[in-house]
């Protein structure tokens, strides 16, 4: 009766270890998110063993909400989540359909339901990722069609749990208001994951990783300058974590290219072309404002 179950074999057989490792390697920081995903993955693994032993009643509810500031990696993690769910056999295909309000809500009466259903059909067997989900609900306009989309979603989330996993994402405070005004959503979502902001050291690591992926690198002076840049940029309004870093690096690449092209007679080496130097960073607007002030 008591058949021994090799959990390690289960774990390796599903290949989740690989996905989690990749998550660790490619996503800097986000410790609470990673531990949460580990927990969910363990739960799903056990759930799978249980279902094989005919111990389970209902399939677990897998709908999630990801809250956090802009650029904290919600979409990236959602993609990985789809992969994990697929490997464990909780979704059949493991693709991710990312949508926003525009894709769900129609423009006139009777347009919303078919539109939402089309999107849901497309996402079936995978994960439906609704970015900035709070836009679905517009309390200031009581005739807003968003409500219709919400009702269809709620129905599908309840009745077709084994066909579709819904992940809602958005900024923390606004999602909170959204859930308070739509209690049906909160109760149908099992996992609330909060994405913290990145620290300065983490942002610098992210920058290193991004440059490495694009075959660039900082020289030591540039790295120092970029650390100072991050400290200043974080204090400014509209800072969106990793996304701001990516934009800053894109601009640095532009300046580097400009600097190299400015002196056409100079012979450049591969290493020159790969290296971002301090002036490329220091001529940023962020530093300029400091001087003028």
């Amino acid at each position: 009766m008591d058949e021994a179950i090799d959990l390690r074999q289960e774990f390796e057989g599903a290949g989740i270890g690989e996905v989690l490792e990749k998550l660790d390697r490619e996503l800097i920081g986000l410790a609470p998110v990673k531990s949460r995903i580990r927990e969910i993955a363990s739960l799903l693994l056990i759930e799978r063993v249980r279902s094989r032993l005919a111990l389970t009643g209902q399939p677990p509810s897998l709908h999630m909400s990801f809250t956090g500031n802009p650029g904290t990696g919600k979409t990236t993690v959602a993609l990985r989540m789809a992969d994990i769910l697929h490997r464990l056999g909780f979704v059949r295909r493991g693709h991710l359909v990312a949508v926003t309000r525009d894709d769900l809500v129609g423009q006139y009466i009777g347009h919303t339901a078919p539109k939402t259903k089309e999107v849901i059909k497309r996402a079936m067997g995978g994960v439906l990722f609704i970015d900035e989900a709070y836009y679905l609900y517009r309390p200031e306009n009581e005739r807003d069609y968003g409500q219709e989309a919400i009702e269809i979603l709620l129905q599908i989330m309840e009745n077709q749990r084994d066909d579709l996993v819904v992940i809602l994402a958005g900024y923390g405070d606004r999602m909170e208001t959204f859930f308070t005004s739509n209690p049906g959503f909160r109760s149908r979502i099992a996992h609330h994951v909060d994405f913290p902001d990145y620290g300065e050291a983490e942002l610098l690591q992210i920058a290193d990783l991004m440059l490495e992926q694009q075959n660039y690198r900082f020289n030591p002076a540039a790295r120092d300058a970029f650390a100072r840049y991050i400290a200043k940029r974080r204090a400014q309004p509209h800072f969106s974590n990793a996304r701001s870093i990516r934009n800053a690096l894109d601009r640095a690449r532009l300046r580097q290219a400009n600097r190299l092209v400015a002196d056409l007679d100079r012979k450049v080496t591969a290493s020159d072309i790969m290296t971002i130097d301090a002036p490329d960073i220091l001529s940023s607007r962020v530093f300029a404002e400091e001087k003028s002030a």
Partner: protein
Amino acid sequence: MRITQGCFSFLPDLTDEQIRTQVQYCLDRGYGVNIEFTDDPHPRNTYWDLWGLPMFDLKDAAGVMSELAACRKAYGDRYIRISAFDSSHGWESVTLSFIVNRPAEEPGFALERRESDGRTIRYATRAYSADRPEGSRYG
């Protein structure tokens, strides 16, 4: 008379699980899947009504199956078929089509002989169900 059109028509009617497997095969091959219905079962009737839109961007058969359930709810007393359209260049036609729903009673066809020039006879088939006007042929 049980009409036989398209694939699998000499097999017993497919179960939902079998339909799902066929649809998944079509989606995996990148075919667009359509649900069509009609109440005129004549074999030369190519004008079936399309239920909803063609489904060419789905990954999983669950979406098609829920549409099929909705179509059966509305037109359960008619013929419903699933057809798969291959849009790849040089092919561009329906590659698979099979009946997934049929009326409870199928009255069958009459064979009409029409005398033509001299002693020539021309034959025509006419569905008994087509005697009644469109929309009230079954049930």
